[in-house]
């Protein structure tokens, strides 16, 4: 009898969900709706979530440059629609319930609209920084070489190295560009990629110096030109950008590093972790994913190579991976490449998640800032995210075939930009001299809007579309990922990485 009762109780405990659903179905008419059931299932998933209080052996920081909440919404729909879904319901690999998340305030010390240098620095040093500077304290001044002295900050990469970990940095932008430079460089000017004033060190040289110092173990990206001077005869040498006569690749290989310059040499590299790897796959930024030749590794290829290499260290690693060109395509006002590079970013994250263990790896996904991208309405469900906006179908679910028209009688695309090259305003010489900007919207068809080279319509005329100060999100899983919650300052990301990898008890919270 007693045994039977215990069995009954445990069955009851096990079937709480079923009871809840039964109770719901008796009083809630919509209880059988899949939306309702999905909501109920999500409650159970959230209740089952246990904080992971292990010490993080590995930390991976994924940054899609310029991928704020708005851009990410568009990437979600693009990825979903490419898989045959309507898109809105799609779940990107980092949007599953096992990821904790927060909103991130991205401003810089002296800028409401941030740039990628101080934002990368904030994530890598734990403090906000000044516009256009990287890893300098508040006293550092942009473009002022003398202000670097005494103001260079300690980076997470240096702390990780002290803790015995390996360090990697991957980017589809130039490896000397702001976001990757945030891992290893300290500079008063993000543009000092290949040369710097007397008394300061250019960013490419700082990377090689950090490699020689044993801080950076693997660096993969574009920007080969920043490492070569005219006349360099290294195999795979790029169009020289240096003027100091130095060949930094030779400098690195002389110190024991391996140099790789295409997909073939990357796959042939020694990944045992014995010899650092410097991979430079293009003279400037790497190709957008839609334009990428097979000879160039993808972001996913580089992610795999970096993790394979870094995993050889028993004490773990810190790896920053940037999808650098989501930002560039946004600057061009070209939503297609923004979204296709964002889709590749998602693939790289899925692979990194697969190659690592949630028990010991803190996987963080974020962006450095948002753009002046915006979304029109009221488009029906499943509206192609790159297309023109079609009306809602009051009877069905999927959008109707009727394009919505603005007051000028013309259709409009879902995505637009507040400023940029797609501006509908063009200059004309005024009678008083000078230029007057005026214009009207051009017509746009679905075929034109979904073309890979289409530039979305914009308002304010600017040669390069701008960032915006709008929030970005951060998503994380693994040790101490639950410390991401609410609305946070961007520099707090460093503190979670630091706590998870260095401050937390090695035995986990339960062992304290």
């Amino acid at each position, binding site marked *: 009898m007693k045994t039977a009762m215990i069995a009954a109780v445990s069955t009851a405990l096990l079937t709480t969900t079923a009871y809840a659903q039964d109770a719901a179905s008796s009083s809630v008419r919509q209880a059988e709706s899949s939306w309702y059931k999905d909501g109920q299932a999500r409650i159970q998933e959230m209740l089952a979530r246990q904080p992971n209080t292990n010490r993080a052996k590995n930390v991976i920081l994924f940054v899609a440059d310029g991928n704020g909440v708005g851009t990410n919404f568009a990437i979600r729909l693009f990825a979903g629609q490419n898989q045959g879904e309507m898109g809105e319901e799609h779940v990107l690999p980092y949007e599953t319930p096992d990821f904790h998340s927060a909103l991130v305030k991205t401003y810089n010390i002296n800028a409401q609209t941030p740039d990628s240098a101080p934002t990368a620095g904030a994530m890598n040093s734990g403090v906000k920084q000044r516009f256009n500077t990287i890893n300098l304290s508040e006293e550092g001044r942009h473009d002022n070489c003398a202000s670097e002295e005494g103001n260079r900050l300690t980076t997470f990469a240096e702390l990780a190295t002290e803790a015995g970990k390996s360090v990697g940095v991957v980017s589809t932008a130039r490896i000397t560009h702001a976001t990757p430079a945030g891992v290893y460089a300290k500079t008063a000017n993000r*543009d000092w*990629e290949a040369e710097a004033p007397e008394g300061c060190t250019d960013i490419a040289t700082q990377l090689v110096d950090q490699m020689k110092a044993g801080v950076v173990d693997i660096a993969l990206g574009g920007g080969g030109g920043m490492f070569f001077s005219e006349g360099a005869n290294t195999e795979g040498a790029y169009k020289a950008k240096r003027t100091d006569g130095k060949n930094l690749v030779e400098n690195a290989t002389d110190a024991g590093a391996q140099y790789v310059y295409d997909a073939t040499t990357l796959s042939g590299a020694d990944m045992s972790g014995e010899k650092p790897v410097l991979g430079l796959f293009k*003279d*400037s*930024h790497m*190709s957008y994913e839609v*334009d*990428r*030749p*097979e*000879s160039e590794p993808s972001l996913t290829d580089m992610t795999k190579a970096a993790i394979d290499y870094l995993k050889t260290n028993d004490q773990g690693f810190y790896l920053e991976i940037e999808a650098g060109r989501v930002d560039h395509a946004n600057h*061009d*006002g*070209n939503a297609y490449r923004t979204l296709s590079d964002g889709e590749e970013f998602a693939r790289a994250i899925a692979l990194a998640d697969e190659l690592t263990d949630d028990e010991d790896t803190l996987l963080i996904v974020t962006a450095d800032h948002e753009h002046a991208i915006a979304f029109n309405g009221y488009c029906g469900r499943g509206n192609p995210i790159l297309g023109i906006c079609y009306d809602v179908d009051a009877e069905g679910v999927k959008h109707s075939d009727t394009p919505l028209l603005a007051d000028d009688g013309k259709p409009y695309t879902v995505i637009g930009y507040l400023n940029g*090259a*797609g*501006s509908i305003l*063009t*200059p004309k010489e005024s009678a008083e001299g000078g230029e007057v900007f005026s214009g009207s919207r051009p*017509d746009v068809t679905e075929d034109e809007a979904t073309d*890979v*080279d289409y*530039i979305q319509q914009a308002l304010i005329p600017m*040669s*390069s579309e701008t960032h915006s100060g709008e929030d970005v999100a951060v998503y994380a899983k693994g040790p101490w990922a639950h410390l991401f919650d609410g609305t946070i300052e961007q520099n707090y990301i460093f503190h979670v990485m630091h706590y998870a990898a260095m401050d937390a008890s090695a035995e986990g919270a339960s062992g304290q």
Partner: protein
Amino acid sequence: MTTNRRQVLAFGAASFLIAARPMPVFAETEIIKLRDLYEKDQSFTKLAKRLEGQRVGVEGYMAPPLKAESNFFVLTRRPMAVCPFCESEADWPDDILAVYAKRVVDVVRYNVKLVTTGRLELGAFTDPETGFVSRVRLADATFERA
């Protein structure tokens, strides 16, 4: 000659009706996109090789000219505001087209879509005046707004 002109007009009118948007169309000139000339590895496409030496119309944008009062400009796939020779960090994209116009170029703003028509030339050429190295060019070119 009369017949030919009538054909041109007929073709133009038809394209107007279909696309609801007049494009400069010439009876014997193919209108292609810049990307139709290059493969991803930057080699020339079959189409480019087939059209070598012929007059073609290519859609694209005029990059800010390298020098004033010149008959030379660079056609880009997407608007390119920055003059790569003025900004040390800027780089030309791989897929561009050098244009040698019949007349001194009347500069068009970088974000206005053009159709540029000229004789397609393939192979490396260094411009004696600017030192600009091109792999593909349109010679004796004219251009109109798309």
